[in-house]
């Protein structure tokens, strides 16, 4: 009886191994040139603490792919978008990108919004020579990972050193600012240091510097220390999930000065929940796009996005859209889906007319574009001003 069972188990296991092996062989023999679609990989934080980013940029990406396919596709073939969710968790992006490259055989990778996760994927894309286009990662290190890594947005030396600095000094007229940083995210730590550099160079003073980490919910300790330093404003270069809690707790402690931050604030969830909109009323943040932007392409994009998804797009959606446009433009100019040819074409991307304006990539594979300041007023996101590079 025992021997019979053992034999059956061995047979079952070997059958399983054979089946999976044949499956693997099948996909190894497959390549994009032979099939009739161009496979594009996307990894985004569709769930988790930065779900708003993933959702928006995925929507923008999907919209662009659908529009391009309706207009005949690229090089006579339809685009096939394969999306993986990295759950806003560390470690998942690497797995997702490896799977997209080795099993799905994509010609390029689109992603991610969060700099930390783009940094995780970049070495893999660089190694396999698959171009990676990040829609809105702003930490300078991302494109420094290799010449196959691109982004269609500006980066944090500009956002922290110029945009936030100018806003604090000129609009808020704040000479004494407190800085509250999330040391658990590459984005926040980077943006904070560039802001500190630019702000102090511009004559301002950082009167208090406090830190927290990604999963913290209680900021009263840090805010109490900040309150004692009596700043004119508080800079919070972090992600929207915690900014809401920080704002609520700051107001509870009697801190009335304005709070400001960067594009990590960009999410409708920022002012969701009891008291959030009131706590952040009058506060501003810098970002890449405003739905009130007045260019024909932007207005068309906003209308199309609203029709397709029923909501007004934000910067992440617009950049997701533009990342596809950049890829498609490069594939067309390269005339092929070969990784190195796409890369070379991407490196010379110039004046691409997209939802966020005209995109030109410089020698560091970053885009030079203006930033917009959005203000939270009466529970709505309102365009305030544009800051040019």
């Amino acid at each position, binding site marked *: 009886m025992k021997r019979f069972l053992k034999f059956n188990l061995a047979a079952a296991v070997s059958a399983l191994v054979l089946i999976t092996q044949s499956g693997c062989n099948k996909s190894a023999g497959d390549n994009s040139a032979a099939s009739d679609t161009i496979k594009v990989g996307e990894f985004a934080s569709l769930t988790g603490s930065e779900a708003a980013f993933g959702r928006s940029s995925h929507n923008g990406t999907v919209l662009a792919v659908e529009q391009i396919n309706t207009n005949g596709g690229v090089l006579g073939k339809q685009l096939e978008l394969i999306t993986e969710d990295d759950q806003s968790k560390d470690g998942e992006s690497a797995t997702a990108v490896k799977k997209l490259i080795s099993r799905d055989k994509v010609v390029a990778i689109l992603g991610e919004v969060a700099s930390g996760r783009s940094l995780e994927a970049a070495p893999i894309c660089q190694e396999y020579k698959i171009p990676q286009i990040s829609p809105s990662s702003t930490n300078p290190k991302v494109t420094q990972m290799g010449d196959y890594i691109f982004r269609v947005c500006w980066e944090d030396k500009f956002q922290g050193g110029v945009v936030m600095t100018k806003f604090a000094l000129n609009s808020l007229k704040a000479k004494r600012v407190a800085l509250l940083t999330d*040391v658990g995210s590459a984005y926040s730590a980077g943006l904070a240091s560039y802001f500190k550099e630019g702000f102090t160079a511009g004559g301002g003073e950082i009167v208090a510097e406090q830190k927290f980490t990604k*999963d913290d919910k209680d900021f*009263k300790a840090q805010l*109490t*220390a900040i309150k004692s330093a009596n700043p004119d404003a508080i800079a919070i270069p972090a992600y929207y999930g915690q900014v809401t*809690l920080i704002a609520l707790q700051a107001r509870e402690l*009697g801190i009335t000065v304005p709070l400001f931050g960067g594009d990590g604030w960009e999410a409708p*969830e920022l002012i969701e*929940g009891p008291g959030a909109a009131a706590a952040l009323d009058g506060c501003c943040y810098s970002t890449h796009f405003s739905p009130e932007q007045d260019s024909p392409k932007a207005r068309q994009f906003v209308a199309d996005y609203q029709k397709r998804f029923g909501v007004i797009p934000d910067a992440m959606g617009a950049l997701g859209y533009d990342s596809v446009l950049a890829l498609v433009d490069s594939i067309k100019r390269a005339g092929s889906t070969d990784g190195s040819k796409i890369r070379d074409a991407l490196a010379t991307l110039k004046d691409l007319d997209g939802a966020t304006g005209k995109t030109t990539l410089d020698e560091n594979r970053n885009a030079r574009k203006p930033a917009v300041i959005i203000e939270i007023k009466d529970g709505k996101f309102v365009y305030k001003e544009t800051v040019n590079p």
Partner: protein
Amino acid sequence: MTEFLQQLINGLSVGSMYALIALGYTLVYGVLRFINFAHSDVFMVGAFVGFYAGLNIHQTSWGSGVLVMIAAMLVCAALGILIERLAYRPLRGRSQLSVLITAIGMSLLLENAGQLILGPNEKSFPELFPSRTFDFGGVVVSSKDIVVVLVTASLLALLQFIVLKTKIGTAMRAVSFNSQAASLMGINPNLVISFTFGLGSALAAAGGILWAYKFPKIDPLMGMAPGLTAFIAAVIGGIGNIPGAALGGLLIGIIETFVKGSRWSTWTEAISFVLLILILLFRPAGLLGKLQPEKV
């Protein structure tokens, strides 16, 4: 001075919530001699029950808030009893390791089932009780903090009363001394153990509601961090000792707050754990615990 007092108040507020969760750990350990790792996830379920109940109630008043809290405590008490029946009772009398691993497994089950059923994204917790802030010359006390401290203190007092002055409390203490001798005296150990789990889980639910009230963003993994800190607090105070759990919770809360507000805020967790190690080195039974000698 203002900053010191403010941080003290912040620390007491957070410490009270840790104390509440720690009470659950210590209660179950005291009676059953094992750590219920699923406790932090019952805490999370309590918060979510409060979320869904709050959605249906649409009111922000003392009465409705209390109702929601009682509803969450009842649901979680039932959950706790169910967990005990399904996962721990079949292993009664087996090795401690099996029960420990089962407890960890139960914790993982609740967390992942929560992510599947409730969705992994954060939800905004509704405002259950009306809140306002009082400013005492620069030191701001929110009514949320007052509610948290008062509820914790009353539940602590209630717990002490139950354990020391009621029949079931005496039964719990008897079972914790010697389960077999207790059953010889006519105590039904199964009943007592179920009651203990129900009580501990109800406390976890109260903790969950208060936590979500203070920090209104909830998600299925929200129990992990406070659960771990509360567990450390329970051990520091003397695991199995009820006033010890309260003391441990307050101590950790205050120390954590002062460290977070200082230059070394990134060392907060490291300092909590170092404190645990130091206290266990010099007082292995915790601050208020008594070393139980092994009776042969």
